[in-house]
């Protein structure tokens, strides 16, 4: 059907024939599900594995799949509840029960965006890049606003076991509290180690942390 298609040969992409022939075969108003399936097939043939970022990264878990489907629209309450429940069940706690580490180390983790990009060294510890989306220590002017300000997180909520536990859970798996949250699931996806999560919790809940000044 098609002769030579430059783009498809780029970057050694093979097996485009299937996806592409579907693309051009069904140009007239295909069903919504069909578009989703074709988009997924198109992505799988258009991305190439690069270092640690293999094609498996395109495989969605149930939460990712459902959140993609709703495309930014509000979820029906039952669906949201189901996602939150399933994610809450994934949360693990340290065997020694200690949820709070060192806020100084937590600040470094909050500043660093290194990790899991194909351009990153997989041997180096990943950061959480909290400042990309949240205000934390008032000393850092360069913070994002995708998430709420966490300035005085501990001070506002009280330095209680409940606050510490909530901070742990939220960092571990934010989808447990807000289905389709924009926040990465740092524990669930093993982005941060147990100790790193403790340190970020400390940044939020330690009365001595700059976040609570």
């Amino acid at each position: 059907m098609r002769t030579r298609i430059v783009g498809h040969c780029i970057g050694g992409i093979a097996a485009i024939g299937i996806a592409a022939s579907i693309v051009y075969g069904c140009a007239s108003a295909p069903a919504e599900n069909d578009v989703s399936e074709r988009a997924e097939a198109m992505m799988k043939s258009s991305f190439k594995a690069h270092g640690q970022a293999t094609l498996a990264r395109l495989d969605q878990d149930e939460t990712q799949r459902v959140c993609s489907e709703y495309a930014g629209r509000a979820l029906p309450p039952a669906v949201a509840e189901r996602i939150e429940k399933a994610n809450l069940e994934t949360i693990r706690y340290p065997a020694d029960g200690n949820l709070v580490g060192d806020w100084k180390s937590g600040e470094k983790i909050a500043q660093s965006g290194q990790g899991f990009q194909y351009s990153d060294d997989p041997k180096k510890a990943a950061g959480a890049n909290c400042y990309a989306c949240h205000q934390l220590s008032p000393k850092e002017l360069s913070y994002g606003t995708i998430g709420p300000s966490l300035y005085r997180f501990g001070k506002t909520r009280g330095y209680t076991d409940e606050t510490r536990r909530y901070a742990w859970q939220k960092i571990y798996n934010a989808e447990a509290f807000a289905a389709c949250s924009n926040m990465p699931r740092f524990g669930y996806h093993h982005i941060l180690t147990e100790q790193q999560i403790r340190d970020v919790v400390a940044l939020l809940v330690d009365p001595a942390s700059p976040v609570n000044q």
Partner: protein
Amino acid sequence: MNTNRRHALKTGGALSLLSLVAAAGWLKPGDAAAADAWNKSAFETHSLDETMKALGGTSPVPSNDIVFFSTPDIAENGAVVPVGITSKVPQTESIAILIEKNPNMLAAVFDIPPGTDPSLTTRIKMAQTSNVYALVKANGKYYATSKEIKVTLGGCGG
């Protein structure tokens, strides 16, 4: 050491770099810099010690007649920081830009011949948040002003 350095800079130590530069024979009145050899030693000054050693000439006089324009207080990226400097000091002969916390302090020197407005813009690199000095030579004397420019972190991979 650090405290000393900071103190010295605030009291005009950094500005005396220009004295060093002047002592090295650079910025001779009426000379076109491009006609001279590139002044290696001036551009390789990177510690206060070096500057202190060369303290021979007079330190520049702080001047309100030197004004930064189109120069933001905060740079979104340190690789390109726009700087504009105007000198209202009569008989301005040259304008130099110095960045306190760069590996080498001196960034650029512009000789301003008669007939050219003592006002220009360019772009410099800043390794980190730092004081930036605008140094002016006029009628054989040195004048300076400074401002702090903050360099911010950006991006998602940062």
